């Protein structure tokens, strides 16, 4: 292995990873690592926490302080880690099912507190690890093994959810433009508060095959077609906005961070 970036930040003896051929998770993970490299952070100052699911296997391949926790609870563990050692840069890696379904409650409360954690959601629109059940982000009408006639649920807009719950940095990007993920993770780590980054990725094995979306390269091109940058989106007339997924920095606000508040309380006695 001579790839400097991978050599420096990965547990290379664990590669090749478990993800399917064409799975986008590897692209997102490389983008996150690239962001950490660009910021020049010390490896020991970073703690990566993940839950359960395909995406959450990521922590096993990274050579930082890593914790692979229980389903949906990555943010709960991360909150504890951050409070115990506020000097750590805590990054949470989670999937759409992990973050929005079983872990939805932890997500909204971490956002509400505005605790300094950077959350990266690998959104592949399906529960891949367990065999393709539909998730809260499976688009309405699309199929899963538990929705053989098409999903009738409306799908979640995770960025809107995080924004409404109180996150202070919210952005979305895709594996087509992996450099944008890197930029957003950098911004997320720099933001003092709860940062939420939704990385749209692909699951050719379950979501793609079940919905006849084609192979991995085709699915990546579809992500490009479906998405539009936030600046371009607001220049479009109302009737042309329908059905387009907005990417880019969607929301940013200044609000007091949780640990600062907590320390102020402690110091008041």
């Amino acid at each position, binding site marked *: *292995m*001579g*790839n*400097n*970036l*991978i*050599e420096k930040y*990965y547990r290379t003896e664990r*590669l*090749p*990873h478990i*993800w*399917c*051929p*064409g*799975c*986008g*998770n*590897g*692209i997102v993970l*490389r983008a996150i690592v690239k962001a950490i490299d660009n910021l020049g952070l010390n490896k020991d100052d970073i703690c990566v926490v993940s839950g359960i699911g395909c995406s959450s296997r990521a922590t096993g391949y990274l050579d930082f302080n890593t914790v692979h926790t229980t389903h949906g609870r990555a943010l709960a563990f991360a909150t504890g880690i951050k409070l115990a050692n506020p000097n750590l840069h805590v990054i949470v890696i989670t999937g759409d099912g992990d973050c929005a379904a079983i872990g939805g409650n932890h997500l909204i409360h971490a956002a509400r507190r505005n605790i300094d954690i950077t959350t990266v959601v690998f959104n592949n629109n399906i529960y891949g690890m367990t065999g393709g059940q539909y998730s809260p982000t499976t688009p309405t009408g699309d199929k899963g093994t538990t929705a053989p006639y098409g999903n009738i649920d409306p799908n979640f807009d995770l960025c809107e959810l995080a924004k409404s719950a109180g996150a202070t940095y919210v952005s979305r990007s895709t*594996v*087509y433009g*992996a*450099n944008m993920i890197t930029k957003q993770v950098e911004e997320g780590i720099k933001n003092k508060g709860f940062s939420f980054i939704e990385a749209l990725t692909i699951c*050719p094995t379950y979501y793609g095959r079940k919905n006849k979306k084609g*192979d*991995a*390269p085709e699915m*990546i*091109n579809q992500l490009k077609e479906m998405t539009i940058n936030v600046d371009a989106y607001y220049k479009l007339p109302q009737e042309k906005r329908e059905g387009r997924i907005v990417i880019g920095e969607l929301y940013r606000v200044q609000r007091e961070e949780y640990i600062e508040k907590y320390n102020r309380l402690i110091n008041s006695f």
Partner: protein
Amino acid sequence: MKALKSEKLNVEEELCKGCGICVTFCPKNVLKIEDGKVAIVDIDSCIQCGLCELRCPDYAIYLGGK
């Protein structure tokens, strides 16, 4: 100024799963899938844009390095 720096295109065959993403996004048709693995077929056309490395989910292809 990428053009001034010459970096070698490397393939780690044992990491490649043959998904074909690099082949599709290579703008100069440098790559091809042979026997389920990526192969460099026309290195002279390579412009070192790095799109293959950027989108390879398996870290099997990269520019430069040791």
